[in-house]
């Protein structure tokens, strides 16, 4: 597009530093879905951006008001569809809070195992596509190979691979299958060497470092100002993770670290997420060794009618703080379900991250934001 307009331009305007408005997306492979970014450029330099979103808007919050509490449960999987288990966990915890019940210990441990497996699966999608955007084609095949193993466990557990609907309000619907523990342990043994393999390909790679270091810097103060959470915040040096800050589902019982870095650039965010995958394996190992016996479902009435009231419950999803603000009027349907999506809020910082940078960097920055448009648009 640019070349064509250059050819038609008289020579004099060639030297003018006029602004160029370039449209990127919604059908662009490295926007990870249908994100449209309008770029204002001065040559290669980005002067400003404007995000156009909403192409995937399905009115999830409106649907919630027209379904029963239990019927809405599968819908949440369709927001962040690469981390559907986390979405389901957040919703179940929010409704359980309103009902004032807690899932039994066995259910909580299984929930942690599946959620952490899903964190790994989500980070693998991020790593593969991010590397692909930068120009490293190999990692995506490796990442999807290992992700397959995690998805197989989901499939054996509940029959679905992507939109799992793994949890129910009050606990779990399904008992674990016979070889569940062996499968999970086998994954834990198989996976860490694979992370070494990815790091071998990327961490020391000069091109990778060159493309990521000091690109899309977001300092800790800027993160707080923009409400940015998750790995982006931790890469800026803030040791904050809801699993530690406000533990839910028994996370306080597990021994794990919150990886942080100091620079807040794209490379640091890469390192943080790689470390998080290793920590997730650490949590899964501890959990699978300690699955208690007992019921998997709390005493929840067949027809769920939470008492009049409201609650806000949030969890540490792979992308940041995922919150549900639920309001009940005492009826069988939610009066209001508000989802606080990490992708939507984090995407707002895109402008700050790319402004003044080069147009080639925007692809790296969209990759490092790790957004899922299903969750941005809901």
């Amino acid at each position, binding site marked *: 597009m640019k070349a064509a307009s250059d050819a038609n331009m008289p020579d004099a305007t060639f030297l003018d530093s006029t602004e160029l408005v370039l449209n990127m997306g919604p059908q662009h492979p490295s926007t990870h879905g249908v994100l449209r970014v309008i770029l204002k450029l001065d040559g290669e330099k980005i002067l400003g951006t404007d995000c156009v*979103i*909403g192409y995937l*808007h399905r*009115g999830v*919050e*409106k*649907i919630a*008001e*027209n379904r029963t509490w239990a019927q809405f449960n599968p819908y949440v999987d369709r927001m962040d569809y690469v981390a559907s288990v986390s979405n389901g966990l957040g919703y179940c915890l929010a409704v359980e*809070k*309103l009902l*004032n019940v807690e899932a039994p210990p066995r259910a909580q441990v299984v929930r942690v195992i599946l959620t952490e497996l899903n964190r790994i699966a989500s980070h693998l999608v991020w790593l593969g596509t991010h590397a692909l955007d930068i120009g490293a084609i190999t990692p995506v095949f490796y990442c999807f190979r290992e992700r397959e193993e995690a998805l197989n466990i989901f499939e054996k557990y509940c029959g679905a691979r992507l939109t799992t609907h793994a949890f129910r309000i009050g606990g779990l619907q399904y008992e674990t299958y016979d070889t569940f523990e062996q499968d999970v342990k086998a994954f834990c043994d198989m996976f860490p060497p694979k992370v070494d393999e990815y790091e071998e390909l990327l961490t020391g790679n000069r091109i990778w470092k060159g493309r990521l270091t000091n690109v899309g810097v977001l300092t800790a103060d800027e993160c*707080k*100002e*923009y*409400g940015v959470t998750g790995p982006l915040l931790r890469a800026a040096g*803030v040791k*904050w993770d809801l699993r530690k*800050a*406000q533990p839910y589902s028994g996370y306080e019982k597990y021994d794990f670290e919150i990886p942080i870095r100091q620079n807040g650039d794209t490379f640091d965010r890469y390192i943080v997420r790689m470390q998080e995958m290793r920590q997730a394996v650490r949590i899964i190992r501890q959990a699978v060794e300690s699955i208690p016996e007992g019921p998997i479902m709390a005493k929840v009435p067949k027809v769920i009618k939470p*008492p009049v*009231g*409201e*609650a*806000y419950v*949030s969890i540490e999803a792979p992308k940041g*703080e995922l*919150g549900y*603000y639920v*309001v009940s009027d005492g009826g069988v349907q939610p*009066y*209001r379900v*508000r989802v*606080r999506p990490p992708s*939507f*809020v984090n995407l*707002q910082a895109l402008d700050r991250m790319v402004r003044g940078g080069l147009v080639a960097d925007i692809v790296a920055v969209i990759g490092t934001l790790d957004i899922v448009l299903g969750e941005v*648009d*809901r």
Partner: protein
Amino acid sequence: MAATPWEGDLARELKERFGDQIGETSTYLGQNFIVANPEAVVPILEYLKLEADFDYLVDITAVDWLKRPERFDLVYIVYSFHRNERVRVKTHISDGYKPETAVGVHLTANWLEREVFDMFGIEFAGHPDMRRILMPEEWQGHPLRKDYSIIQQDQCWVQENLGIESGQ
């Protein structure tokens, strides 16, 4: 179980500072919230940010109570990294009231307020960019209002832009 009064240093400080601008300081299911007058919300958010370390605006949203004269609940959720504590600031506003924007206090408010405008038609005064964010810009109606039916569409928009004659 109903909400019980919230007894805490912060609740007391807020009441001392803002007096009868704050109607209620309560706690429900272990979650603290205050109900304030609409004009006091932004000063309260500013006070919470500067004096009490609530430096992270988690969310802004609204709830439509159709039958109430002050139709909407506007809900701000703030979090303090330092205290590891969350507080909800709520206010009741009637249809057509234009609350002041919180963008001056938290930059996050920009998109969050745009979404509230898009879904509920609550316009924020002084907002730098008060446009729709998820729905198409020419769309008529605000979907999350309770008098907007789930199958309702902007028929003209659908006919014009999608070429579907029935408009559904």
